[in-house]
């Protein structure tokens, strides 16, 4: 019963509003944005410590007791994702100073970033299924703004499709929530979990589970529903792309994770097997896309799809090891995807093209960039001391424990495809003959782009090397995910 857990949502929202004023002064916009994000990071960090010490924190708005009013719940899963979101937003905004152009900065780019962070954090924190829909809309609305800002032809063309897909999936979301309400008669997520456990999940609930998978899968880009992602993500400029790639699909994954570990846990044989099959198909589809393209943006974008598959494979196992792995891998993937997009942005800035065939020989002039790209690529693949390793290890371990031997081996083998796809960028862009170079490379611009990027790569390295320190938090998160009663008790009985 403290309002503290609302701070990571309210601070970005408040700063997003005051950024709407004085929009022509770029200095004001930049400083205010960074200051707001720093404040939010501090509050999220305080919340993390609080949740670690005192267990899940809940807040019932307007003091309506838990199943009736809207509750906000901050357990370990949500607070870790909130903190990651804010840190990444900080780095991406910093990176964007040089690579987003002045016109965009003057037309509510920073407000858009703040509102998207508000929506993402709200979606991670809310404990009410309809409120989840509302926060989804908040972040989608901000993402519509960011994807179309600038008004280039490709942006307009792709954003129409992006909006259309999301409007349809939002309508489906409302329909699904309506079905759930008519069967269960409540919207509070903890209460839904308890009621479904009482009914022991009849067939109709399983239908609703599949509908939820459809809705969230559209946002998370799982196998048959990822068709909109490559085109839509390639259209906006790199900082926006990094923001989308790091945050938006992850909200869909979080929602699947939450609903499939909290609500639909009684008929695992059907729902979770479906999730497992779709996860494997997602990895295959992403792998094909990543290997097929010669466009650096597209390669990394398809790597998002692969990671979605790997994380959901972990969720589908439903044992503690795999869920802990999924959490570790989720946070890792958010960090490393943002870092990779930023590195790709620098490569595109230097060469002036995103076509791999025209690049080459960057290693001679930009060795630091090359090595940091190499480290990030190995981190993405999951080479031992780096950040992807431990998450994938736990996911595979969980897969073996659950008896899915062949699919686990397949997921393990998919790392090779990931490695191949990113190393191909390294080989084509950094080795060989000198390729195309952009005509106007400004050394200070390059340095200003490079500095936040190396910091973020170092964060990802620290995340991998310092797993020892992070594991207790992840243990806690996995406990919440694998045992719904921790969550429901915290909400319905008002915590300790």
């Amino acid at each position: 019963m403290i309002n503290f857990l609302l701070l990571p949502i309210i601070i970005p929202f408040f700063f997003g509003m005051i950024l709407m004023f004085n929009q022509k002064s770029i200095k004001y916009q930049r400083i205010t944005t960074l200051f707001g994000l720093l404040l939010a990071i501090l509050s999220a960090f305080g919340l993390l410590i609080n949740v670690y010490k005192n267990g899940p924190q809940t807040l019932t708005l307007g003091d309506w007791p838990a199943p009736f009013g809207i509750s906000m719940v901050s357990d370990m899963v949500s607070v870790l994702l909130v903190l990651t979101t804010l840190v990444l937003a900080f780095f991406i905004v910093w990176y964007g100073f040089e690579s987003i152009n002045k016109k965009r900065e003057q037309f509510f780019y920073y407000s858009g970033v703040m509102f998207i962070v508000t929506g993402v954090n709200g979606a991670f924190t809310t404990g009410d299924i309809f409120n989840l829909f509302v926060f989804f809309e908040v972040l989608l609305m901000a993402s519509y703004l960011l994807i179309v800002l600038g008004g280039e032809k490709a942006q307009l063309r792709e954003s129409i499709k992006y909006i259309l897909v999301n409007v349809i999936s939002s309508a489906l979301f409302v329909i699904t929530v309506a079905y759930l309400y008519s069967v269960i008669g409540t919207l509070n997520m903890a209460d839904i979990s308890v009621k479904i456990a009482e009914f022991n999940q009849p067939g109709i609930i399983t239908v609703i589970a599949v509908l939820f998978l459809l809705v969230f899968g559209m946002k998370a880009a799982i196998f048959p529903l990822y068709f909109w992602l490559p085109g839509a993500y390639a259209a906006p400029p790199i900082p926006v792309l990094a923001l989308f790639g790091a945050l938006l699909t992850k909200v869909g994954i979080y929602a699947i994770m939450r609903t499939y570990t909290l609500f639909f846990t009684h008929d695992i044989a059907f729902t979770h097997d479906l999730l497992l099959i779709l996860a494997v198909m997602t990895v295959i589809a992403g792998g094909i896309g990543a290997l097929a393209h010669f466009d650096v943006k597209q390669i990394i974008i398809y790597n998002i799809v692969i990671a979605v598959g790997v994380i959901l494979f972990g969720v589908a196992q439903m044992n503690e090891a795999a869920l802990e792995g999924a959490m570790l891998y989720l946070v890792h993937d958010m960090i490393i995807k943002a870092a990779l997009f930023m590195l790709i942005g620098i490569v595109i800035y230097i060469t002036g093209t995103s076509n791999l065939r025209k690049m080459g020989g960057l290693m001679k002039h930009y060795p630091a960039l090359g090595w940091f790209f190499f480290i990030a690529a190995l981190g993405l693949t999951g080479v031992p001391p780096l950040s992807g390793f431990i998450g994938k290890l736990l996911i595979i371990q969980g897969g073996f424990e659950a008896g899915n031997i062949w699919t686990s081996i397949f997921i393990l083998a998919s790392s090779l495809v990931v490695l191949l796809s990113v190393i191909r960028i390294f080989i084509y862009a950094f080795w060989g003959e000198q390729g195309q170079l952009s005509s106007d490379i400004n050394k200070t611009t390059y340095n200003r782009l490079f500095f936040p990027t190396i910091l973020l790569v170092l964060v990802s390295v620290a995340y991998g090397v310092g797993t020892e320190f992070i594991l207790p938090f992840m243990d806690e998160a996995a406990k919440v995910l694998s045992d719904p009663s921790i969550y429901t008790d915290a909400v319905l009985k008002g915590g300790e």
Partner: protein
Amino acid sequence: MEIVMAFVCGFLFMSAIYLILSRSLLRIIIGTGLLSHGAHLLILTMGGFGGENPPVLADGVTEYVDPLPQALILTAIVISFGVTAFFLVLAYRSYHELKTDDMTLMKGSEEID
């Protein structure tokens, strides 16, 4: 009553899908509008039509209307209005830039190699 509403919702969804599958952008937007209307009616129906009285505490009244679906619809309607307005503006702007409102002509993938 529920049966009638089911038919109305179904009809709205049907026409929405028909319109969304057409080529003209404006028809698609009208389709999304109908889709969200169908969804809102569905929420109302899913709350059930039992209860004669407004959900206000008073002596001797036991049969209340469920107020929650109405609150949900209110939120969902506002959101869908906002999105539709944004979509219309975007359609207008893209018609100016791209010189077409035909979805088949918007495929284009010249940047992607």
